């Protein structure tokens, strides 16, 4: 963990309520895709945890959905503003276990951390494919960015306005063979993916946090191998340890 000041380079709207923020600062403490930052905001007592979408040198990309006071405040910020961030939080995804053809499954704002994961897997010479699930066509973001990495991407929408109609698990039925499952998204989706997945895998969880760095026990969960803190021992849990 590091605490440092980042400067906003850009903050743009991707869909009706999803924004992409690019920042510049000390990114030296990030070790794996799937880690997150915890952002101090004016007038709010607790920091806001947001997962990392992309890292490139000192550039950090965050994608967030406006759901409350904190993210609403973030959405109004513009270039040049500085933010106090705790960086390098959480364990992140382990790419060692992926095999050659891992499947990445994201839902809504669970999609962003899979982008950096895909980049890392590709850099390691693997061939990941992705299923990205949204509610409707106007909610879809980052499809082109995943394509631009040179990988196969399927989109699902609940109302069928784009891609496969239904849930990410409906698109999973068309996947012939994959070596490993990586997932991030709402808990109901994670649970469905957990059940539908035919391989081992890693799932990234969300929880209301106090500190975000393992001190307060605010976000603990039970696993098959004891209690874990989502913020410090997670947010990524192995399929084999999740109690479902």
């Amino acid at each position: 963990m590091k605490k440092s000041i980042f400067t906003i380079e850009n903050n743009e709207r991707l869909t009706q309520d999803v924004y992409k923020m690019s920042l510049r600062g000390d990114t030296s403490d990030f070790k794996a895709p799937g880690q997150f930052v915890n952002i101090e905001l004016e007038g709010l007592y607790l920091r806001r945890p947001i997962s990392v979408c992309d890292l490139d040198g000192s550039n950090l990309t965050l994608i967030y959905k406006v759901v409350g006071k904190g993210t609403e405040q973030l959405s109004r910020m513009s270039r040049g503003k500085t933010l106090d961030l705790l960086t390098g939080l959480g364990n992140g995804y382990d790419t060692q276990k992926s095999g050659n053809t891992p499947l990445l499954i994201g839902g809504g704002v669970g999609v962003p951390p899979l982008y950096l994961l895909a980049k890392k897997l590709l850099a390691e010479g693997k061939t990941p494919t992705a299923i990205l699930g949204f509610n409707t066509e106007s909610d879809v973001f980052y499809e082109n960015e995943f394509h631009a990495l040179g990988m196969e991407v399927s989109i699902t929408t609940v109302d069928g306005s784009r891609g496969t109609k239904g849930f990410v698990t409906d698109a999973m039925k068309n996947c012939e063979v994959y070596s490993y499952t990586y997932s991030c998204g709402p808990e109901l989706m994670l649970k469905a993916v957990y059940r539908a997945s035919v391989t081992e895998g890693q799932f990234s969880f969300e929880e209301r946090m106090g500190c975000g760095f393992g001190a307060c026990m605010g976000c603990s969960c039970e696993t098959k191998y004891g209690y874990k803190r989502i913020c410090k021992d997670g947010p990524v849990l192995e399929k084999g340890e999740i109690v479902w």
Partner: protein
Amino acid sequence: MVDTKITLSGLTLSNPVIPASGTFGYGAEFAELFDINILGSLSFKGTTLEPRFGNPTPRIAECESGMINSVGLQNPGLKAVCEHELPKLAEVFKKPVIANLSGFSIEEYIECAMAMDKQQNVGIIEVNVSCPNVHGGGMSFGVSPKAAAEVTRAVKAVTTKPVYIKLSPNVTDIVSIALACEEAGADGLSLINTLLAMRIDLKTKKPILANKMGGLSGGAIFPLAVRMVYQVYEAVKIPIIGMGGVSSAEDVIEIMLAGASAVQIGAANLKNPYACKEIIEDLPRVMEKYGINSLSEIIGGAHA
């Protein structure tokens, strides 16, 4: 050169700043960031006899200038704390620590205190009396002078280490409970614990916390803490560790003027992991600003 030293039941602390139990774990996360040996002492995560997972999540809610937690005393239990956590803590923190204990019966407090009495790096035993007494209809030990005194006597009987009772503010008269603990032999008092609070989510129209209610901490409760420390200081002769929303060097001095001999920092650590370090480093400047040469001389200074 200002003097930040204070003494607490015979222990000399280089400064009065102590992270509060439950906001600093066993120090490891903070030791990654700075040398935690600058702290006066450290009150580690509350220990119970048996391992506890605690309450279901969500356990955290937020409010103006504070937060509400319903962690529910998650800890690995007495045996694991003594065998694993305390040796690890001793590697990163070389000074005497404060062992915060909780129990759901008098017997549990006794067992925990007996084990902590044998731990070399434990300087003070801090007894959390805010837990429900399972043999007393689930009422908290800390809300009755009689029950609080009973816990105090039981713990005092099994340890030679100084015993501080951590008082609950969720009472009608904190002074009567403080006096009962003093009379029962307490060496000192820690106050205040969190205040029972609740938030309701407008989207779900239900309480945010799975446990419905939790303990409020943070800047929001600081004036309450100052008032209660002030009232208790008037009534007792034993030292007080003041806490409750302390977030700055100015707050440290204010609560010491109310009567605290040392000060614990809680929720501020979760918002800013450097909070204790920044407060310690800022103390000399603030002391000079207000013409204070020695912190130990200002304890209770607000009283006539």
